[in-house]
């Protein structure tokens, strides 16, 4: 693995699809990009069928630009909207059964550490609120209790978007959805506190209003998982379809929610804090 799988055999360059050649020549493999350079390099994620203006798609775009080592990363997703883009990226992707993502990731990460004991292999789960906190709840929790060393990112659109608008445990209390016509009866689950209690070593919550901060958070979550234990990011990624947000107001909505209940929050253990302080002292090592 490593960079081998993105090399073009000599003489075949002119027969390969342009997007592939662009990816090899102007992409992220084997070099560090800064998220501020978006629009000036070939991104890992390709055209995909997520809706116009979807901020879950936006979060995923920034996520790929932020990967510390895309050539040594495996992404795990499942049923739900996110996999529509995750499956269109030049990073290996595994489709876990709905609810199974964190069990699959646990096994995979353990297998990778046995097969490649001297290499860093990053495993990241990206799944919806339904996939992680409702139907996959048990497996999400147990991967945390068992201190599995991978990152879990919940792209929380507060609804089952892909199946047409059922309420989830993450939908806010009182909200009316197509299939919650009387309004949701219960509170939004506090996923961040659950993650801390269950043993995550790095936990963050954000609304996608600042690409630099998203990238830094993703990077920190991946590096902390590499060395210490489970990490979790709770990202607000609105569903403009099910919440009837006009597409041009999607960023305005994210900014509003950031002020209301998705203000940036970051928590980590003392050990992880010291690790990042050390990295910041030696900036060349952050890139390792």
């Amino acid at each position, binding site marked *: 693995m490593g960079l081998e799988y993105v090399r073009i055999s000599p003489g075949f360059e002119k027969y390969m699809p342009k997007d592939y050649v662009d990816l090899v020549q102007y992409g992220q493999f084997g070099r560090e990009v800064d998220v501020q350079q978006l*629009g000036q390099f070939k991104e890992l994620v390709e055209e995909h069928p997520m809706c116009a*203006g979807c901020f879950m798609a936006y979060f995923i775009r920034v996520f790929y630009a932020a990967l510390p080592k895309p050539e040594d990363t495996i992404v795990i997703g499942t049923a739900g909207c996110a996999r529509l883009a995750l499956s269109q990226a030049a990073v290996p992707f595994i489709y876990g059964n709905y609810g199974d993502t964190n069990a699959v990731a646990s096994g995979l990460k353990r297998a990778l550490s046995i097969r490649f004991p001297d290499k860093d292999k990053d495993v990241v789960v990206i799944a919806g609120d339904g996939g992680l906190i409702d139907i996959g709840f048990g497996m999400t929790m147990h991967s945390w209790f068992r201190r599995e060393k991978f990152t879990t990112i919940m792209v929380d659109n507060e609804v089952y978007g892909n199946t047409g608008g059922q309420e989830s445990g993450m939908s806010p209390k009182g909200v009316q959805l197509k299939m919650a016509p009387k309004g949701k009866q219960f509170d939004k689950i506090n996923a961040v506190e659950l993650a801390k209690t269950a043993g995550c070593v790095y936990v963050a919550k954000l609304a996608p209003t600042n690409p630099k901060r998203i990238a830094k958070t993703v990077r920190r979550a991946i590096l902390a998982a590499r060395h210490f234990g489970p990490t979790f990011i709770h990202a607000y990624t609105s569903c403009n379809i099910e919440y009837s947000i006009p597409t041009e107001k999607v960023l305005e909505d994210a900014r509003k929610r950031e002020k209301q209940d998705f203000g940036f929050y970051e928590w980590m253990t003392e050990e992880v804090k010291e690790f990042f302080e050390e990295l910041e002292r030696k900036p060349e090592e952050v890139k390792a």
Partner: protein
Amino acid sequence: MYYVADVKEADCAKYNCKQCVLFCPEPNTLMYHDSKHVAWVNYSRCKGCAICVYVCSDLLKRNCIQMVMVTTGD
């Protein structure tokens, strides 16, 4: 016929800015020209959400990007 974003190059070039590029949800779509310092749209990939217009017009008050109707093949 469908809607895509279109950058007014001469206006955009005044600002040395790339804020809209950093907020487009689509990959490899709203690009930035290194030497001309302007944003440009890969029309066939644009989904017409107008988030870039919100960034340029509503947030930055620069009005350098607008939605236009194009016909397939344009």
